[in-house]
């Protein structure tokens, strides 16, 4: 394989794995030797970065809503929506556990 072709050698799925550090070492070496593949990998990195920039935690409830959920302050319908969200969102599950631990540490009471 050459490093001067105008078209990438590897498929996007391989370049995506390369970006994640998951590519086979031989494949990674070939990508790094290919200007077209490096350019394409860079485009994919940019696209993913922009999508994450816009979408990261976009569907998650605000943290105070998680807190009000834990405190039992939400209306039933909103609480059910949070429960449904928690089934699919491990970061929110983790944050809710943090909230619970923080609020309940040392037992009930405000001196904690």
């Amino acid at each position, binding site marked *: 394989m050459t490093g001067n072709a105008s078209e990438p050698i590897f498929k996007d799925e391989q370049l995506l794995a390369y970006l994640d550090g998951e590519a086979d070492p031989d494949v990674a070496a070939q990508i790094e030797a290919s200007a077209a593949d490096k350019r394409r990998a860079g485009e994919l*990195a940019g696209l993913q970065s*922009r*999508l994450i920039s816009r979408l990261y935690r976009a569907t998650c409830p605000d943290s105070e809503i998680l807190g*009000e959920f834990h405190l039992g302050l939400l209306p039933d319908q909103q609480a059910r929506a949070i429960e449904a969200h928690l089934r699919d969102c491990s970061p929110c599950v983790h944050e809710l556990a*943090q*909230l619970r631990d923080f609020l309940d540490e040392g037992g009930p009471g*405000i001196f904690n």
Partner: protein
Amino acid sequence: MLIDPFWIGGAANDLCLGAPGIHARGLLCWPVAESRQLAPGKLASSCLAYGTMNTDSDLQSRHLNDLRQHCAEQSVRFFQRQDHDPRFCFELFRRAINNRAEDAWEYLYQQYKPLVAGWVENNATFHVLDEEREFFVNRAFEKMWGSISPEKFTRFSDLDAVLRYLKMCVASVIIDHARAQARPQIENSLDALDGEVQRDSPDLEELVLDRVGSQEFWHRIRALISNKTEYRVLYGSFVLGLKPQEVLENYPEEFNDVREIYRVKENLLARLRRSQELIAYLASYTGETL
């Protein structure tokens, strides 16, 4: 006129198990420290009795300065883990929230700032973040001020409940900061090669993404996916910021292997890039022609 409370014996304490509030025979219950029985920092519900009870209307008719003085006195007792009357401070909170009384709120800020600062220090996540304690103290008060409406305040039965909400606000602002700090870390990990790239023309990935509301954008993109597998990859990759291996670990029953996830991701990205509907939406949203 409030008469200093005196302790009732253990039998009375038994009456006060459960939620604080006014119980039988005019007993008023709220959490006070029992340093002889509990480790430092622990509270238990105990009872104090008053020869004369203050009614809500008594408290609500008191001058702000009078409430401040009593709140300060009772707070000293509170911090010394002595029996105390929390209703003056509770009334200040009620007045601040219901009347949007900034002078009452400012007093409460000064009064409880040390307590809130202690909570911040006790939060494990705080110690891995890059902000000073005072930053989170101030954000916590701001969040509480912005979050509690008079209607919501009616859900709080006593000072303990109000302060528990304030403590929740401490956790909340720390979580907010941790969320914000996590985002650029994920972006930077993907941008390693981006600086080497010379883009030749604006296309979907250039997109003016920052001008589009995140949730609206999410719903537009979600409309382009065709099955649950794609949804998992889209949601896991870009909403949760997971790599394909992590998506596989989260949903092992839905994929054969990690290569399948990379294939789905490749197809998804290609579809997003060529979606005329998405391009048209973005063009109309921004007024630009792509």
